[in-house]
Structures are given as C-alpha cells and as structure tokens.
C-alpha cells in the first residue's frame, strides 16, 4: 500500500536522473503553474481543476539550511539538519538533509535526493532526504 508520504515521491527518478528519487508535483493544464506537493483540489494560481501529476527533478540548489537543536517530534531526534531547496524545475521544497551536523552548507550548493529507510510507523517503507550532490563524486 502506498502511504500518504510515499505519494510525495517516486523511487524511480526522472529520465535525466534515474537513480535519484523524483518528487511528485503538479502542473496546471490551464495556466502552467508548477507546484509541489501534488494535489487535485484546484490550482492555487487560477482555480482550474485541470491538474496533471508530473515528476520533478530530485536535483536543485540549496537556498538556506538550519541545524535543529530542539526536536518537537520524537520521530526526528535532534540534532538534525533541514534545508530549503529550489529544484531544477522551479519548485521550492523544504526537506530533511542527509548531512553531518557540522557540514559546511552554503547557499547555492547543489543538492540531490536520496532514498532512506522510513523509521516511522505507518509511513511506508521509504523516505527521502536531500544531500550535497558533491558527495556523488
């Protein structure tokens, strides 16, 4: 069964980036607005319900990051690091990052998705994180 969380991404990436999970976003057929996450209630830009599901690249640039020192959720014991990423498709997402607490993260760093095992109950088998693309080298 696909969990609500797993509706956010596909394990199989985009054709250009097949080994990195793709984000599942939406595109309005009426006005072209691209957004994440996918929803079919109606386009936030124009109100149209002609919305299609699209795969968004799992690659982007880091806008900002922060190390969380005090967790508000037992599923995420502190410290952990989060960031805002602008994807190649223009979507802007916030995600947990797969980096060490002392990682040198500067705006503009290339980031890429990776699949990680889900540890929370009833959230499916996998989750995704973003990590610096440089780690690929």
């Amino acid at each position: 069964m696909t969990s609500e969380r797993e509706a956010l991404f596909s394990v199989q990436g985009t054709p250009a980036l097949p080994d990195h999970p793709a984000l599942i976003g939406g595109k309005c057929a009426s006005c072209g607005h691209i957004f994440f996450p996918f929803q079919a209630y109606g386009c936030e830009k124009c109100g149209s319900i002609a919305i299609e599901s699209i795969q968004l690249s799992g690659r982007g640039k880091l806008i900002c990051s922060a190390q969380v020192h005090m967790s508000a959720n037992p599923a995420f014991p502190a410290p952990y690091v989060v960031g805002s990423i602008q994807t190649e498709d223009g979507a802007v997402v916030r995600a947990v990052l797969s980096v060490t607490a002392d990682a040198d993260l500067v705006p503009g760093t290339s980031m890429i998705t990776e699949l990680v095992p889900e540890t929370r109950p009833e959230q499916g088998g996998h989750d995704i994180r973003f990590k610096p693309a440089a780690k690929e080298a």
Partner: protein
Amino acid sequence: MAKLIGDLSPVYVVGVGYHPYQYASETSYVALGLHAVRQALADAAIPWEEIESSYVANALLGMAVGRPMLRHLGALGKPVVHIENASASGSAAFRHACIEVASGISDVALAVGVDKPPRSGVFRSPTGIPSLADDAIVPFTHFALLTDEYCHAYGVSPEDLALVAVKNHANGARNPNAQRQKERTLEEVLGGKCISGTLTALQCTPVGEGAAAVIVASEAGIKRLGIDPARAIRVASSAAGSEEAGNDLNPDTALSFTTMSRAITEAQLTPGDLDVIELHDAFTVEELLYAEATGICSPGRFIPMLKEGAWNIGGQCAISPSGGLIAMGHPIGPTGIGQIGELTIQLRGEAGARQQPNAKHGLAHMVGVGAVCYVHVLSK
C-alpha cells in the same frame, strides 16, 4: 465602489485594558478576559451597558467561549461574535469592530482577545495534502531557515540579529503587562538554550496566556458618552490580505509588504511619518523582515540602523516599544489587540518609561498562519 475605513465615519480607540501576559497558570480564561475588559471600560470611563457589540478573539480555547465570559459583566442580550485567525485573531477582531462602528451600525464596540495555551497541542484539521517535512520543520525552524537566508543575503551575523532581542527585552522590562520584564545582555541572549539554527530561546516568543481589550467609538458615541476626546486615538486605516499563489517560502514578508503599503497609503502617510511600530516579531528575524517591508528603511539596512539606535525608544521610530512578541509575549488571541492598546497608550503620551517622544502616528502589524496579514495605522 469599494470603500476604505477612511471613507466611512471616523473611528477612535477610547479604552484600553490588559490582563498581563504570563506563563500558563490555573487562572481561568474568564478571569483573564474580564480583567482586561473591566480595565478598558474604566479607561474609557463608560459602563458596560454602553457596549453595543463585542468581538471576541481567540485561537486556542475552543468553541463559543465569549458569552460565558462576558455574561459576568451583565448579560444584556447584545451581539457577540468569535473571531479565529491564528496569530492575527485579535487584529481581525479589532478590524471588524472598527468596520461595525465606521459603518454606523454601532457607536461603541468592544474587541477583546483572550487565550490560554492548549494542554495537548494545537489541533489543525488535516487538508489531505501530504507534506515532505512539516513534522520536522515546525515554526521555530521555519524562522531559523529564514534567519540563515537573511544572514547570507545581507552579510549580517547571527549576533547582529540577536541585538533585536536585546532591544525588545529592554522595552519589555518597562512594560508591566509584559510576560518577560527583564533586560538581557547580548551574551545572555546568545548564551541561552539553542532552539534551531542560530535562534536561542530569548530570540523566540514565549507563548503564554493573557488578555487584551480595546473599545472603539464613533464621534457621536464619544460626544454622547462624554468620553475625553483628547484621549481618543483615530484609526486612520485598516488593511487585510492573504497569501497569493506561488512557490514563495517566505510568504509572510511579501504579504506584509503589500498590506503595509495599502495601510500606510490609506492613512495618507509615508513610512517615514511613523513614530511607533508594533510588529509580529515572534522570532528576531521577523522584526527586521517586516520592518523593512514597511519601507522605513531599505532591505538590509535594518541592522546597521539598529546599531545606530534608530529603532530604540527615543530613536527615529520606536519598534516594538511594548517589548513585542519576544518580550511582551504572544498569547495568540490577545496579541493583535494588545498592539493596538500599546499604540493608543503611546499616541496619548501615557506610556511612561517606554514613551516614544512626540509620537503622532503608529502602525500595528500581525501575520497569522495561512498566511493572513492585518495592518492598522493609528494617528493622534
């Protein structure tokens, strides 16, 4: 054609009352709210019988809490409406009380905000749309991310941002209604508990409990009830908006810019005319983002001007003279009404140790999760 508040009959704030903001206690919300309303009635020097309509702001208490509180002033059968608009609940209640009086439906109306922290978290019904990391990125982390973005964009340090908290704690120390009434050094602010990113506990609002009330009246009401016109402060404008479509991770600032611009223009002022500003400074970075959105300085200039003292009481424009959300506190429902009360006290010249000299124009600004935004300008 659509009308602005300024196109309708003039509205004045004639009464202000508080129950001091404080950490959660066993005191009932009824006692908190009644304390603020009775103080506002005494301040206006009018009896409860003259209040024609009441707007009750809260976000955390649950359904229909107004009449069980107000009935203890005398259950007279007058209209009561509840307004929930997240952090901007009080601001929304104030706006609608003003609209009622400006339209001529009532001559005298009450806006009262009261709240207590919930015992087991805030309930928000699920939308059915999943999120990637909302459970890992709670509000304080959202603002930690914006702090990191601002620091990189304008080359300022986390220590610079902490100066906002030093200023607001100093102001709160002069406000008997503030939840935090202690001056703090930069070392104390930076050395406190680490929350998220570079934010420490003293740079984050303490969400507690309390109440704030204001009474608004028309010119006819002021004359009929013999209210001192010298202590009546004009509501020069009221503007409200909600977030527009887009992929903006900082919608509050864009929304604030638009709403502030409308409110300042409607009041026929320029940003430089503002003497006092109360902002939604729940986290230090918010004060500078929203202050810059008013147009009182260009983006990136807030911190250099803060260091010059421009935003202190006695400076070019006193920002958060009440202590703001960081020091005065943010009990949610009362907060926006408490800001209106602070502006009224400042423009009357009754703020004592935290008085901004010769204050003539003040602006109050709140955002609420959603996002929604409310801005009011008051003038002497």
